[in-house]
């Protein structure tokens, strides 16, 4: 296998030309998100360059504190992003979402790194990139799950009130909404699993192959990561909604939706 070709700044800058296509289509279709495209592109570039510099330093000077700090920062940011996208939920629900996301993410990362790969959790070369993928996908899943849950509850307020009046326990009323939200959160991962290897070669595997790893090794890692992503999404969304939905009613089973 050949080593990866390093991109120089000139070569790298060419990729930004593709954004002009996006910009053109957006203008043509009157999609009023030009500002978001520019901000998102700049933020992505700056954030990834900074992450690259930090990772270079950490990999050259490995220390458990750096690894822990990096994971904490990543988790904290993921929680912040989820809560930013779901501002209307109550304070206790927010705490539960944060704890669910952090504990599910860290538990799955620990299992992956320590049990499956069999290296120390403080090894930044494995822990940082793998937690990035796992926590990042948990963020997407929980956001989607929460959004679905909240929207459905708002849309079915009349059904909820009727069932409450009839003497149905709130948990029983909310369970179908939580189940639906978990399904919605899981579907993108499950669908992408269906097409994997045929219509898509996932990012991690592509990266490993580009950097010279044997495809079979890259594939094993990729399979492990996808299963971990599926598990973390399921666990984080389930915990968020199972425990979070309990904050929507009080000890007298009175609901506040």
């Amino acid at each position, binding site marked *: 296998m050949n080593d990866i070709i390093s991109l120089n700044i000139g070569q790298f800058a060419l990729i930004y030309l593709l954004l002009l296509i996006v910009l053109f289509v957006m203008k043509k279709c009157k999609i009023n998100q030009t500002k978001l495209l520019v901000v998102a592109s700049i933020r992505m570039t700056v954030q990834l360059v900074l992450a690259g510099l930090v990772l270079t330093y950490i990999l050259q000077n490995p220390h458990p504190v750096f690894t822990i700090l990096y994971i904490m920062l990543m988790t904290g940011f993921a929680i912040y992003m989820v809560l930013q996208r779901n501002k209307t939920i109550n304070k206790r629900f927010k705490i539960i979402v944060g704890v669910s996301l952090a504990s599910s993410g860290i538990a799955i990362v620990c299992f992956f790194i320590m049990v499956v790969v069999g290296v120390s959790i403080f090894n930044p070369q494995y822990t940082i990139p793998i937690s990035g993928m796992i926590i990042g996908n948990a963020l997407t899943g929980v956001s989607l799950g929460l959004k679905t849950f909240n929207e459905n509850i708002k849309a079915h307020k009349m059904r909820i*009130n009727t069932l409450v009046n009839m003497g149905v326990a709130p948990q029983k009323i909310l369970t179908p909404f939580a189940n639906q939200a978990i399904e919605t959160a899981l579907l993108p991962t499950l669908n992408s699993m269906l097409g994997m290897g045929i219509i898509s070669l996932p990012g991690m595997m592509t990266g490993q192959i580009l950097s010279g790893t044997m495809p079979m090794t890259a594939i094993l890692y990729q399979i492990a990561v996808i299963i971990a992503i599926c598990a973390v999404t399921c666990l984080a969304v389930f915990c968020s909604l199972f425990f979070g939905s309990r904050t929507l009613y009080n000890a007298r089973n009175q609901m506040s939706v």
Partner: protein
Amino acid sequence: MPLFTLKNVNFNNIIKFPDIEIPENISTFICGESGCGKSTLLKLLNGVISSTDGEINYLGKNIEDFEPISLRRDVLLVGQTTYLFDKTIKDNFDEYYAYRGQSPISEKAMESFLDICSVNLPLGSLCNTLSGGEQQRVFIAINLSFQPRVLMMDEPTSALDDKNAAALMKNIKSFCKDNGITLIVVSHDKAIADKYADNIISLQGRAEGGGEVLAGGAKYE
């Protein structure tokens, strides 16, 4: 002993209720202008909401001391808005029974409750194809079939014409009387109230949108 007694009840400092007594085994109608707290009163009585101050007693015991789910099944509230699943009438009966963790009732029993509510439709009729009035009556029939100790209905005739409204109220009152069910009805329809009420509570006063505290008063007839 009265079924319900209210003393100095206040909800969110917006609605102050007068002291009220509701007797058992007769039909009580609650009347009053919009915003005086009629619907809120029904919600307070079945514990869907709690009062900010004051005391509500049910069968001589503070309502807060009752297990809330059992209380709601005992004191059933048929809300102002009708909700039926996009399924057949029979499926709606089954669905609501399943939600309450109860075995479904027989089709014959369903038909008899529909008959009380003047619904002459096959059990296989899809509820989303029914008129507003038919949906309201199907919904009341389902609630009636639970045979609670107290049946509270909030504007049960709002979607019905005079003829259907009169038939519905006559049959329900008769069913409740025969089965020892106390009926509490919120209605803006004075004619219906005068005809079918054994007891009328007129709430006076109005809680304005700004949340001003205005005292209500009860008038017993």
